[in-house]
């Protein structure tokens, strides 16, 4: 079985199913566990509530309604909207993503991937510096110099270090971590430090200085001013080895994301002049890669498409201003979890209706006007998903589903509008 806990899509899970019920999952991490069982990600003993029936708000309170009623209401909301937003899609299957793109076209809506703020600086930087890319298999087999920048794989994709990057035994890294040198750069000392040969804790706002210092050291001309602590060691670390990889996480894109990724991509390109060196985004959502593949294939760009623009189609790396939309459809994401409180309150004050598709209750479903319960991709619904390196796998249905899939609901919505 394939785990949809994160972008690793580990395919070595063993499930025990009896009489249509899932009893046990082996080889799974906590993230995966929360996909297979109704428990919270970091607290496996805390239950998550499964949404059992479609919900629609009547007089401000959510009531259970039939699927047809929920569909009618959602179609009415989205059909009447002048500026709809279709948000999320990084935690849903590729077929659902295709249906969502079709719906966004029909609604003349903006479609925004949930992790646009994370990936936009990356794709932007590639345009300037080019790219050396390798799938995780080659990285596992060959990378002997691994740097995590603003990434904590133990939290974003827990089995990544074991399967691909640190402890994995590859073809030319047969002794696992003993054949690799691992370093990390982060604002705080994270758990990653326990297995890293070098951990550089950088003060907030000094990452760019650290990167330019590394470049200067690599060129053999360190600047006269005081360097950020760890610059020399990190430059020495990166200049050795036969095959390097920099995994960057969301920590690299919170502040000055575009400038930082520009520098990181420049550093990878500079190091790549002497040996293979890969810059790799550590996607946490299980099918973020699938969404960008779809955007590339259909629109020729990984930018967020806006079908409601006066020019017909505008694609942009800029994240959406939630203040400009008058209806929101959320699929495969929980934006209310991280939306700044003032923005959430502003949406509430403007009475912007939200339609949410989710298997579990979350903050977004709590604020939504219409909620559709959905089948879990890869457990209750067959789907296709792309691993974080862009390789697709087929997710199988192993349990009977009592709910429609994301794709079915999106197609029904497109028909109803």
């Amino acid at each position, binding site marked *: 079985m*394939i785990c949809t806990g994160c972008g690793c899509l580990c*395919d*070595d899970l063993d499930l025990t199913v009896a009489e249509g019920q899932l009893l046990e999952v082996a080889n799974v991490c906590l993230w995966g566990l929360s996909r297979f069982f109704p428990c919270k990600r970091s607290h496996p003993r805390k239950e998550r509530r499964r949404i059992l029936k479609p919900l629609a708000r009547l007089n401000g309170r959510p009531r259970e309604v039939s699927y047809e009623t929920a569909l009618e209401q959602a179609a009415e909301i989205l059909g009447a909207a002048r500026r709809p937003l279709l948000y999320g899609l990084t935690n849903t299957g590729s077929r659902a993503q295709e249906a969502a793109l079709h719906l966004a076209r029909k609604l003349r809506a903006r479609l925004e991937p949930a992790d646009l703020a994370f990936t936009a600086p990356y*794709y932007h930087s*590639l*345009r*300037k*510096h*080019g*790219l*050396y*890319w*390798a*799938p*995780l*298999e*080659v990285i*596992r*087999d*060959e990378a002997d110099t691994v740097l995590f920048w603003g990434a904590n794989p133990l939290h974003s994709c827990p089995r990544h270090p074991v*399967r*691909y990057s640190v402890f994995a035994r*590859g*073809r*030319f890294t047969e002794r696992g971590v003993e054949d690799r040198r691992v370093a990390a750069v982060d604002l705080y000392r994270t758990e990653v430090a326990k297995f890293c040969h070098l951990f550089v804790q950088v003060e907030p706002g000094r990452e760019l200085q650290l990167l330019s210092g590394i470049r200067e050291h690599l060129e053999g001309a360190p600047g006269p001013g005081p360097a950020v602590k760890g610059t020399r060691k990190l430059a020495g670390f990166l200049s050795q080895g*036969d*095959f390097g990889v920099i995994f960057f996480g969301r920590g690299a894109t919170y502040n000055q994301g575009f400038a930082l990724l520009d520098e990181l991509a420049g550093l990878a390109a500079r190091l790549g002049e002497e040996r*293979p060196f*890969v810059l790799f985004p550590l996607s946490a959502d299980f099918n973020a890669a699938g969404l960008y*593949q779809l955007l*590339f*294939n*259909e*629109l*020729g*760009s*990984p930018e967020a498409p806006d079908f409601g623009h006066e020019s017909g189609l505008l694609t942009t790396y800029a994240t959406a201003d939630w203040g400009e939309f008058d209806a929101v459809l959320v699929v495969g994401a929980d934006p209310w979890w991280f939306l700044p409180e003032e923005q959430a309150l502003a949406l509430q004050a403007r009475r912007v209706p939200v339609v949410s598709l989710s298997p579990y209750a979350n903050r977004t479903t709590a604020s939504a006007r219409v909620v559709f319960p959905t089948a879990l991709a890869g457990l209750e619904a*067959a789907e*296709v998903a792309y691993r974080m390196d*862009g*390789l*697709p*796998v*087929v997710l199988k249905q192993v349990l009977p589903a009592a709910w429609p899939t994301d794709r079915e609901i999106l197609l029904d919505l497109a028909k109803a509008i």
Partner: protein
Amino acid sequence: MTHDLKSCFFEVGAGGAGGPGPLSQGKLSEQHPIGWYGMKIKITGGRLYDPAQGINGAEQDLFIAGDRIVESLPQPDRVIEARGRVVAPAGIELRGQVATYGLNFLRLWGRFPSLTELGRLYAAAGYTHVHEPLLTLYTAGYVHRQLAALPLVDTSASLALNLRDLDDSLKSPNHLEELGQAVKALQEKTRALDLRLLEPFVRYRQPFYSHRTLDAAQTLETLTRLALRCELRFSLEAAPEVLEAPLPEPRVFHLAALGRALTNPRRLDQALAHLDRGGTADLGFPCQAAGGAAEKPVKVDLGWYHPLNLTPDAGADAGAAALRLARQYQGPNLAFSVDGPVRRPEAALSSWWARLRDRRPGAGADEPPDREFSLWDWVWATRTLPARLLGLADRGHLAPGARADVALFDLPPDTPPSRWADCIARCRTLLKAGTVVIEDFALVQPDAPKATYYRRTGAAAGPLLAEICQYRSFRPENLWVTDELGGDWVGLD
């Protein structure tokens, strides 16, 4: 110029150019057979070009019933007027790099069309089949997903073998049978149409593994024995060292994208010798760069000795060398193809062909042409021969029984050579399996059915295959391409 067709081809295994097996449709295709809504059509008054039947511009009617070409029709449902137009089999792109893993990154620069556009461009240029040259064991699912997203045209792909996976077996002459079975099983499991070698040698970047190295001569000698014993055939991506290496039996190797390997006159002679000995090849004209700001390097490391360069130098030299070879070679074994990711299918081959047509001394090459290139040659090199090389028995010709993939071009006999490239770059009418897809230069059937072709080898997965898959990052069942990862499938026996 005509060719002796009987002597052009040979029988080598299931993928042999002259002996493709019977076509059988896969499960999905049985539900929606291609051309199911085709009608009875008569194409009247056109100048037919069909080298397979020896028809060289004769004014002749063509009859189509359903998805097939038929001898005659008493009462057609529709008549397509083709007076003054060229009627030819639809194009078959022998080396269309459209779905290679990593190619999507090229779209970042905005000068590479989306798959939807690309499919339409191919159809507009008169193509109905595109063959992707680079599918590997673990990118097979990706490539097939991409090919399925390419609209309008049928697709297929080559399995590019990484010989590092097979180096032990290549060194051991007693295991050729087992190796052959493993390769065939891989081909079927990844749903590839044929086999390809990018690096016909085993070399490691890590000095520690240098004892496992196999040079090109050793490797090609073993592969020849393997091919002869197990009825295999390989497309060999041309490189200078490939031409330098002795090819003991040229008929088991098709040299792909020759242009870039022809770096000096000696290599040109070596390529001609290969063709004269009965081997086949495709030219590999460089794809025309779209111009504008320079693209940044995009390289993808697939575990070979060299990374795959997706932004190769446009290669004016390679183009000139390919032209020179085409002009010097007099036989039938040379197909047209492009080298590198395809950006503008409508212009990729037509512009090179127009340069071949140009008989002025020095036009496109350093010496005057040795032969005159006619429409017959163009149809042969872009339709008939590619179909045979891919084992598509019912394509590339217009004989009764062939699938009705037909392209009509506005190319009056008195067209000056300067306009030929424009005329053949866009077809006026394209029929795919008897369905009109392009009419009056406009796309009229955007949802025309399409399928992906692969070779059914029937080989069982043995211990060697299990060993190859043992160290992959996916379990074997997730490496194999299943129905869900592609569109309609058609298995060729």
